[in-house]
């Protein structure tokens, strides 16, 4: 049975084993390689995508559970060539080294900002605790989320 879902705003019909993880389907079948494999057990967050707006570990999510759901990956955060404020904030804060954790961090951060547009540092750390940056850029990532929150607030006020 094919599975229908919405990926980055586009309806996709997938003829794939429902037992496969969303991460492998995104990466191997849909050529969306922004979400990364880092552990396969929900411990690193490199594979984070939004499902119905909620940050989710795609390595632990079975395709079969997603019928009719909407999935947003890092590739879908940009709108009309305009970076998501958090993507821009990561650039401005230099919040990366190897960049392998970055997609997962931004998606998890974007999900937090959606729930809480102006999170303080402890809330940011808590929300991102499941995401590993082995290069150790945590402080910069927190600063980037803070900065994006500030931009967001300005935009809504302005």
């Amino acid at each position, binding site marked *: 049975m094919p599975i229908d879902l919405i990926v980055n705003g586009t309806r996709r019909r997938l003829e794939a084993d429902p037992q496969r993880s969303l991460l492998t389907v995104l990466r191997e079948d849909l050529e969306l390689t*922004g979400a990364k494999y880092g552990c396969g057990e929900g411990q690193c967050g490199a594979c984070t995508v939004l499902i119905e707006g909620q940050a989710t570990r795609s390595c632990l999510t079975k395709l079969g559970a997603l019928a009719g759901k909407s999935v947003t990956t890092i590739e879908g955060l940009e709108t009309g060539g305009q970076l998501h404020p958090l993507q821009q904030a990561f650039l401005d804060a230099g919040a990366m080294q190897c960049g392998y954790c970055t997609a997962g961090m931004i998606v998890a951060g974007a999900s937090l900002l959606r729930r809480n547009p102006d999170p303080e540092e402890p809330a940011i750390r808590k929300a991102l605790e499941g995401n590993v940056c082995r290069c*150790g850029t945590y402080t910069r990532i927190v600063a980037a989320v803070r900065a994006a929150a500030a931009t967001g607030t300005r935009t809504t006020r302005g």
Partner: protein
Amino acid sequence: MVMADTAVTPFDMGTFGSRTTPIMAAQLRKVAAAARELLVDLAAGRWGVDRSALVAQAAAVAHPPTGRTAGYGELSKGQKLVKAIGDDVPTAPAERWTVAGQSVPKVNGREVVTGRHQYTSDMNRPGMVYGRVLRAPSVGAALVSVDTRAAAEAIGAVHAEWKPTPQPSGAELFDYLRKNPTDAQGESARSGYTAGSVESGRAAAATRLDATYTVAYIAHVPLEPRAAVAEWQDGALTVWTGTQRPFGVRTELAEAFRVPEEKVRVVVPDTGSGYGGKHTGEAAIEAARLAKAAGRPVKVAWTREEEFTWAYFRPAGVIDVKSGASPDGKLTAWEFHNYNSGASGIRTPYDVPHQKIEFHATRYPLRQGSYRGLAATANHFARESHMDELAHAIGLDPLDLRLTNLSDARLRAVLQAAAERFGWGKTKATPERGFGLACGVEKGGYVATCAEVAIARPSGEVKVTRAVTAFECGAIVNPDHLRNQVEGAVVMGLGGALFEAVQFEAGEVSNPKLSLYRVPRFSDAPLLETVLLDRKDLPSAGAGETPIVALAPAVAGALFTATGVRRRSLPLAPKGISA
């Protein structure tokens, strides 16, 4: 700029040993300067003007008298311009740098934040299939039988029988290292150092101290595990792989498949980090072997568990230190023996008349190799911890003891800078809060770290709450990226200092998962303060490694001031502190 493609770039050793900045950057600067002159020549020829009237700037050549300008790309028109250059190409000294010395942002940052940046594991080739490798459960196990019929389904479905061989376990590790010396003459002979007579230095001392320090095996845990894509065409092999040594991996491949090196091309798309852990070409060889058998391109991407089990680790080690000092804290004797962990950073920067320093190669139970800073992490931990112990025994402040014995001006400068920013000596330690400091020099970089730890009572949970690191590596090339490296090294160092350790039983790694092997996370990251000393008068050294070396001993010192108990093993508090 094309980087790390053995078919189109000149040979280089690789990205390790903090060599890029002192060696490669200097070469690139010459090449860039020569290329600029070549482009100026092209423009002069094209416009028929004197080259001295031309200005090369911002990726274009301009002729101010006529207002003409042409971009570099426009001038070279996609041609391959080849020129051999000598060693004497003039380059700008640091005082006259315009781009270097600035915090230029990462070139491919936008690709990264949009998820478009391609790592090896993201690659796809026409007709590519995925390969997996069945591996032994433990070091030294031999394959008895295997039924490969289920291999097409999943590697986990393959039934295999293995015969283990007796192998050491973690509990006996340090005994094992001490009792199994090998005479790998090379490294031990080269790294040894003797001056005066330790015996007489000890005899003259008012305070004598003997102590043993140990460090555990730790894993690099690069967030992208090893990966490679291999493709054969007419007997020639192309492999894309995330490695720190593309030319080294090319040699490995040529040897493995008995083909000349000219038939092998290694391309490094980009690497989800390495930290010294990706010098080798395991995944490259596996992918190439499978691609050969399958007759089509194959991708091999290791799982986290494979990476934890079959990559290599920072070597575990045992270090014995014997010292002596006069009543005013002057070191009189220093004897230092490192078993297995390595010789990097083994020498002491302090002034000691009588010294004996030796590295002892031993047999070792797990695969081991390079790690950020190599053995400098272990040797600095032992040496700096021992300095603290001496200070305590003599009744001196750890900072004063160091300064008393230190004539190296660059090291003194970072030590004083870190102490000043930290406010060293201003606050008294309590059972809940301690302060430590350490310093060192390695690979041309000078570092000092002051750390503050907090111990939650009664849980005993330990947190590094603040780390101030002063670093000096000559003329700073990119201040923001340097800061980023220093911060990252401190955060990574914190894992090895407090809780990281590879556990193993009879040659089998027993914590090969992120859920079992703890790495630093957001909640572990301390308040980081970095003080950079810019020495425009000195050549730039690398900075990826050395900033890691002083953190662990500084944390050990901080724990001591809080608890009064000296911890001599890394990790220092994998389960917190009970007392």
